[in-house]
């Protein structure tokens, strides 16, 4: 929809809590904001962006590598994550409290995880394929 974009972010963290588009500018200035929030006429993607020092910035990505194949890439997938990172697998959530994500799998198949670190990190999808090893 062509129109007037808006983004609402928290002044204390820069987190974009809402964004969208209005067909009329009068609705941009009518968007609900709380005392610690501000609405700007700019299109920001809450999943990928936040406001840092008053300017749009990219939310950091925790993972450089989001596609793994075992055992080609190693015996296991392991990397550090911030405390209280939420990991979802097939929709079920668990909270990481030991500072690391670990996956060791010997059952062939494809495994998809949603890695949700605390703000300002992005939510990322992790795909791990366990390849079947031919028996000798």
């Amino acid at each position, binding site marked *: *929809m062509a*129109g007037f974009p808006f983004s609402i972010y928290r002044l204390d963290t820069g987190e*974009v*809590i*809402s*964004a*969208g*588009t*209005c*067909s*009329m500018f*009068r*609705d941009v200035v*009518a*968007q*609900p904001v709380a005392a610690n929030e501000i609405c700007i006429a700019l299109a920001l*993607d*809450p*999943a990928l962006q936040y406001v840092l020092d008053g300017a749009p910035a990219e939310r950091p990505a925790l993972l450089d590598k989001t596609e793994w194949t075992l055992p080609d890439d190693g015996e296991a997938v392991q990397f550090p994550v911030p405390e209280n990172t939420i990991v*979802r697998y*097939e*929709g*079920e*959530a*668990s909270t990481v409290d030991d500072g690391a994500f670990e996956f060791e799998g010997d059952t062939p198949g494809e495994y998809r995880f949603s890695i*949700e670190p605390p703000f300002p990190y992005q*939510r990322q999808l992790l795909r791990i394929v366990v390849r079947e090893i031919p028996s000798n």
Partner: protein
Amino acid sequence: MATLDESPTQFQPLDINTPVVDRNGFPTPVLLRNQQSFKRTILAQAKAINEATGEIELNTARIDQEAEVRAAADNASAILVDRVTAEALGFEAAILMKAEVGINPAGVLARYQIMVSLDPGGTLVNSGMMFDVVSNGGGGYLGQIILDADKVKIGRATTTGTFPFFLESNVLYIENAVIKNLSVGTNKLAYNAATSIVITTPGGLVGPGGLLRDAAIFNEYGAVSIDFSSFLNRPSAGGGNFGYLQIRIARNASQITQRTLFYDDNFAYPVAFTHVDYAPSGLTCTYTATLHNLSGDGNYDMTDSVLRLINFKR
């Protein structure tokens, strides 16, 4: 009193001295007639008819040209008709070009007509253009252009180009249009025309008791359609983690509707519903969608919630 000219008006016959031959080169019968008339009465009138006809068996080709002028004390008129016709194999095709002007005390009459027609045996098909300026005393229109056709195309006639304006079977198609101040008068659109729209991006990871999405729209007149969509993640595993949850929609902090859903740690599913709110006109409405747990452990959350608000005419 009319002024009469006693010298006969001279009309030259059509120049059709070139012999007409058929496909085998044999001359065809040609009828050529030139007629002039003049009557000295209270009416001054002159008429000329040029006619060329070629006939072989049942096939006929004919060109008629008529010119007629009339003048009277209270009227004047002039008519010019060109007609080209051909008949063969039961088909009759014709091209008619006609002009007509008239002046009388009641007003004016000026017409022109270009018409092509084909009668393939019982069903007349014609296409043409008519211009009209009818007298104000005749009860008609002052100025009019009529395109009489089953199809009308406007555009550059190329093999690959499209016609941006296209009329077919009484349906008008417009490929591209820049319209200033559009007024749509039928209830096909007018009743459901959107005045303004507000759409949020997907976002939020919200548990029970949280705000899923909120947005505001100015309700100029009519109704506001609230379209909400979200995704219920698979709840955490637990023997008691099943029950009912509720999504509540509020306008300016007053609940206007809700949807009750069942959750279970065995499945996840998308959620989408629409509600139409007949909010007061001239009011900015802030709509909120919130998630509430009604029973069970309530260990679940929803994500990627989108709120779409559309202000309809009614």
